[in-house]
Structures are given as C-alpha cells and as structure tokens.
C-alpha cells in the first residue's frame, strides 16, 4: 500500500533531470507554441518517462498506458497555446494531464462516468498552472515529502492513494473502505495537513 519504500536511484535521477531542466521549460513552451516538432521531441524526452510511469501506476495496463501517453502529449501540443511560458510550470501541467487521462480511462473501465470528465478538463487547463513554485520537484523536497508520507498511518496513506491514483471522491472512498464519510474526511484532511506542513518546512530549509 505504500507508494515507495525507498526512493530508487532511477527515480531520483529522473527527478533530478526534471529539476535541472525546469529553467529550460520556458524555451520548450515557446518553441511548442511555434509548432516546432523538435520542441515536442524535447518535451517527450523530459517528461515522457515520468508521465508514462504515472499512467502505468494508475491504469496498470501497459498497452492502455501507451495510448494514454500519446493522448497526453497530443493534448499538451493542442493546448500549449494557452500556457504561460514565463509563469507556467510545465512539469506539473504535463503530470496533471497524464494523470487525468489515466483517471478518465479508469473511470470508463470501472463504469464511473460521472460529471468527472468535465471536472478533469477544467482542472488541467493551462492557466491553472501559472505561478506554481517550480522548485516543488526539487529532489530534496520530494525526498522529504516521501519520508513524511511513509510516516502517515495506513488509513491516511490509503485515502491519499485512492484520491491521487484512482481519482476517487471521499464518498467513493467511504464506499470502497466501508467507512463512514466523516472518518474518510478526517483521514484525508489529517494526511494532507501533515504533507503540506512537511513541504512548507522543506521550502524554508
């Protein structure tokens, strides 16, 4: 049920790669807006593996994951016009689009086609990813966040996973876990509070 027990070297390296390239993301966005195919290649080289890993974690189907990754990058290509090259955080946006494609697929497979599709479209709009702290993905901060996650109780960890990797609302979590909604809300609120505080301390440090 844990996200990770240890931060593998490969993942650490991957996150470091993301961090080092944050400064170049603005240039990639500019070239994407100019419809430069090389920019798309660069975007894929930077975030393709991470996005694919995330999608695989959500859908647990390599074949579907490939299709969804292609959808992700086509969506980014088609919507980059609304992305602010100077103020936008490209990595978080790509991850959000990838995650949402995966959740959308999961919902269609599970038959959970609510109004979710509309919400996903809204929450991944490029304008939502302006003025985000680009250093959030710095390796030391990620490591501290992971450490904090591992200190959560099992109940707190499971509700975080259900929200992030299965796109479940708290009502759905309550049904899945056979717990009162109030209990699920308490677990979720307390988990996020701990993680938020850890991230804030890491930012100050």
């Amino acid at each position: 049920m844990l996200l990770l027990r240890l931060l593998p070297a490969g993942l650490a390296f991957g996150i470091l790669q993301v961090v080092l390239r944050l400064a170049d993301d603005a240039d990639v966005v500019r070239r994407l807006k100019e419809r430069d195919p090389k920019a798309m290649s660069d975007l894929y080289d930077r975030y393709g593996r991470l996005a694919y890993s995330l999608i695989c974690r959500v859908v647990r189907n390599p074949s579907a994951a490939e299709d969804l990754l292609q959808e992700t990058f086509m969506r980014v290509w088609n919507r980059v016009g609304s992305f602010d090259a100077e103020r936008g955080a490209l990595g978080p946006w790509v991850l959000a689009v990838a995650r949402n494609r995966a959740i959308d697929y999961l919902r269609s497979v599970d038959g959970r086609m609510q109004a979710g599709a509309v919400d996903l479209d809204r929450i991944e709009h490029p304008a939502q990813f302006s003025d985000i702290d680009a250093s959030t993905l710095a390796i030391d901060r990620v490591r501290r966040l992971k450490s904090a996650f591992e200190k959560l109780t099992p109940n707190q960890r499971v509700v975080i996973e259900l929200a992030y990797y299965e796109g479940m609302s708290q009502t759905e979590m309550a049904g899945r876990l056979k717990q009162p909604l109030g209990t699920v809300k308490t677990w979720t609120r307390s988990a996020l509070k701990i993680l938020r505080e850890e991230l804030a301390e890491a930012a100050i440090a």
Partner: protein
Amino acid sequence: MTCRELQDAYELYALGVLEGEEKAEIDAHVARGCEICLQGLADARAMNAALLSFVPEKYPSARLKRRVMEGIGVRHPGWGWLGAFAAALMLIVALWLAVQERERTTQLAEARRMVLQVSGERDRLTQALQFLSDPQTVPASFGKGPAAPPRGYVFLHPHLGVLLIASNLPAAGQGKAYEMWVIPKGGAPRPAGLFQSEGARAVHILNGPIDVAALGAVVVTVEPEAGSAAPTSQPIIAAPVGT
C-alpha cells in the same frame, strides 16, 4: 465558508475529486478572485505534482515516441526507406504468387486434358467391347502373312458402326494422319474418320448405323493431318467385307 476552513480541501479540489459544499465554496472563492484561495490552489497543485512523481519508474518503448511524433505529423525518416523496401518486397511476393498461380493453372489444364484423353480412350474401349460382345458384329481381318504389314480386325455392326483394331501400324508421319474409308459395293469411298497410331497400335470407331450388307470394304490410307475428301494414297489397310 472561510478560506481557513477550505484550506484542507485545496489538494482534492485541484485533483478534481472534491465534492459537495466544499467544492461549491471553493468554486465561488475562485470565481470572485480570492487571492488566498488562488494561492492555496497553486501551492496545492505543486504538492500534487510532487506526490504524483512518487511512482515506480517504467520505461516506454522506443516506438511510442515515434507514435507521439507521428501524431503531430512527423514521419520517422527510416520508415520512408523501410516503407519503400516493404513495398518492393510485397511486389516481388505478388509477382511470385502470380507466376505460381499461372503454373498451377497450366498444370490444372494439363491434368484436365489428360483426364479427357483417358476418358476418351475409356469410351473407345467401352465401345470396342460392345462391338466384340454383340452377336450381330461381323469380323473382317486384314494383313495375314508376315508380321511386317499392318494387321488386325474390322468389326461392323448395323447400329453401332465400324470398329477398327490394328497392330504393326507405324506413326503416320509429320503432318499426316490415318484416314479410314468405308467403300460401298460398286460405290466411291466415303470418309470414316481420322486417327493416329500409338505404340504401333490403333483403335478407331465410326459411330452410327451402317448398311453392312451393302458394304464392300473398309480401307485405311495415309492422308494429310486435316483429312481428305477422297483417298490420295494407296491403302495400307484393306479389309474386304463379307469374305
């Protein structure tokens, strides 16, 4: 609800899984440009990105990048060459299959021809047996004496026609054929069909009723391959009827 009361819901809102009153409240705060909620949501999206990066690393296949690039209209240069090669290969395969098909068609036609030939020979043999077994059949022999000249029998039947069975009959020659004639008593020879010998033997049948009593002889001459209206050479077989 106040911003403070909503601050624990920003992450779920940014994930799109928040529902109910809390969602409606944040929607309202965002709609009126609440700076506290907008900054809270920005921080929430940052934390969400960090949490989403906690996944076991998976490696997509190399072809996946090609698919992505093809999605924006970029063709892999290698595919052009490979495509041309594949097209050429398919053309070669198609031509080979066409040749194979033609050969099979030829073989099939040859097989059919052989079947027809065998069927024809079977029919002739069947008719020959019918001749031989029928009590109304009258024999007339030829070529007695030394084995060198053609020899055999001519069988005549008033309803079945004429049956010729010959041996010591060499090939008629290039562009030539044997032609049988029925000669009425006191009359001119009438054509009775063309045939070739095989292995120095020949079986030839003239179908149809004949007046055996009015028949004087049955002869065979060598004629041009297309046949003649009247004998152009000396008979090599002459079988008098009724002797």
